């Protein structure tokens, strides 16, 4: 008998993760390819953001096109606090993250009544409003369209300015945040999220306060995405509005969907793949948006479950074939 968490020898569960042990050594392997390490760092940042997106969209079923706005709340939040106050960076990152979670929850409270199309529109509007604010800020504190410079990541006296240093900090963050999400979705709260995604009426009927859980899902989303945003700002050392425009929000959705919604590894696979693809497409700048459009359509039609979802289906199919072949053999032997 197989249950989610009981009865299976623990070590067997973890064997398939052995190849991941190579990850910490990637900067050494890519020593002469600094650019590659930098791409990995960006991938880590996006893994954190899409993991948050997966909680609200993959697990709770609430579509959102406001991801780059919350990314921006984190980035601008920490940058502005650094620039205009004497608060240390460790705290500005934390404050921006919590602020974003709070804004996401305040936003979700009225919006939690809306369904797919209307929810999409309200999140798109939210992103536009945010964009308007950062490009036409009072007194130009955000640097408006010119952007704003900020010091690079330095925490507790350790500088993570270089890619091969940031990589390890990013890796620790990814491991902690992805693990926390894995635990969260395998709990009472995670079941409530999934129940809301699968059947809102039944969820409410079974005693789940749908509004409360939607608000909390948005809170987690706001926190994860904004934390990624703060890392982005302090890793790059410069932010400007186009990173936080509505079009960019679609990119996070592409990452989440390509990897596979509502899965442990979907956000990781999706973010790493799309960051690389993005980089390749960067050489054909003119056609980049066109390529995204085509890719998105191809994913939806041919990979509706993403890499993880379709992979699982494939494994199930192969298992069935093997089982079928075995049964036939037994029947043959019996005859």
């Amino acid at each position, binding site marked *: *008998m*197989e*249950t989610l*968490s*009981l009865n299976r020898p623990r070590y067997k569960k973890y064997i398939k993760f052995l190849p991941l042990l190579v990850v910490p050594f990637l900067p050494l392997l890519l020593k002469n390819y600094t650019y590659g390490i930098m791409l990995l760092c960006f991938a880590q940042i996006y893994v954190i953001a899409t993991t948050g997106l997966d909680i609200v969209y993959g697990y709770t079923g609430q579509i959102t096109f406001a991801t780059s706005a919350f990314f921006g709340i984190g980035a601008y939040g920490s940058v502005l606090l650094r620039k205009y106050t004497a608060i240390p960076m460790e705290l500005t990152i934390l404050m921006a993250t919590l602020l974003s979670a709070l804004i996401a929850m305040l936003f979700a409270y009225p919006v939690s009544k809306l369904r797919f199309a209307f929810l999409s529109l309200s999140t798109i509007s939210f992103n536009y409003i945010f964009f308007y604010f950062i490009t036409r800020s009072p007194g130009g504190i955000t640097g408006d369209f010119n952007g704003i410079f900020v010091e690079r990541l330095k925490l507790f006296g350790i500088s993570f300015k270089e890619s091969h240093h940031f990589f390890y900090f990013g890796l620790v963050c990814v491991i902690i945040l992805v693990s*926390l999400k894995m*635990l*969260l979705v*395998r*709990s*009472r*709260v*995670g*079941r*409530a999220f*999934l*129940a809301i995604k*699968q*059947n809102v*009426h*039944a*969820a*409410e*009927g*079974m*005693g*789940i*306060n*749908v509004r409360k859980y939607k608000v*909390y899902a948005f809170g987690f989303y706001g926190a994860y995405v904004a934390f990624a945003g703060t890392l982005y700002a302090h890793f790059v050392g410069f932010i400007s509005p186009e990173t936080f425009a509505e079009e960019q929000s679609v990119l996070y959705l592409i990452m989440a969907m390509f990897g596979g919604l509502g899965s442990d590894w979907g956000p990781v696979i999706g973010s790493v793949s799309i960051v690389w693809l993005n980089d390749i497409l960067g050489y054909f700048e003119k056609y980049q948006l066109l390529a995204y459009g085509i890719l998105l359509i191809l994913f939806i039609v041919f990979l509706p479950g993403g890499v993880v979802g379709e992979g699982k289906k494939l494994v199930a199919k192969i298992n069935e074939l093997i089982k079928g072949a075995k049964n036939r053999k037994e029947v043959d032997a019996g005859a």
Partner: protein
Amino acid sequence: MLNIDHMTIRFGELIAVNDVSLEVSGARVTALIGPNGAGKTTLFNGISGVYNPDEGQILFNGENIKGKRPSHIHNIGISRTYQIINLFADMPVIDNVITGMHDDLKSNFFDSMFHTRRHRREEKECYEKAHDLLKFVNLEHRAHEAAGSLPYGEQRRLEIVRALASNPKLLLLDEPAAGMNSREKANLDETLREIIERWNLSILLVEHDMDLVMGVSEYIYVLSFGKKLAEGKPSEIQTNPDVIEAYLGGDD
């Protein structure tokens, strides 16, 4: 236990439930019958909070629950099944049952995120309890299949145990026999008695299968066009001329 006092539910000009009063109490089955479109499911939705009745009061153990959220009404002990099956179709059968225990579990966000000892103890307990419940309706062998892949009759049984998972005081069953074959229907009769005995709860049953209704209920309310047509013991209902006319149709 449950007292509905002059409940009226309107949809624009249509009066779906018209000034209906009824009472459900005791460890027994109370049935609500009536021709199609009589307003039975609307009345259920009025009790369980899906609709907010336009008039009247709904008292459950003294608390007026009119206009409360469905989740609140479930939390204070009224659980239900649905006429149109309303399971979490892609979830495993056992997770459907455990989701039904949502408000009995105490784990909060912190417990959930860090899998504290409380979380682990509760998860273990609720898996055991869910297996026990599935055994009760002979679905244990299906525990890890997707709920949506089960045959119709099994889905109905799953809905019933999911509703029981929260240890309700009142169980609302909306056409539990619909789509069941005759053998399953015969067993349902027995199952309902066992439920009452084991959980010591009250059942309000909406059902079209008259053999089942007359066999298990101790008291029956009859609705027709949103109005209460009659009430009484099964033997009284069976001989009530108004009821017979409503079901067979008058020739005026």
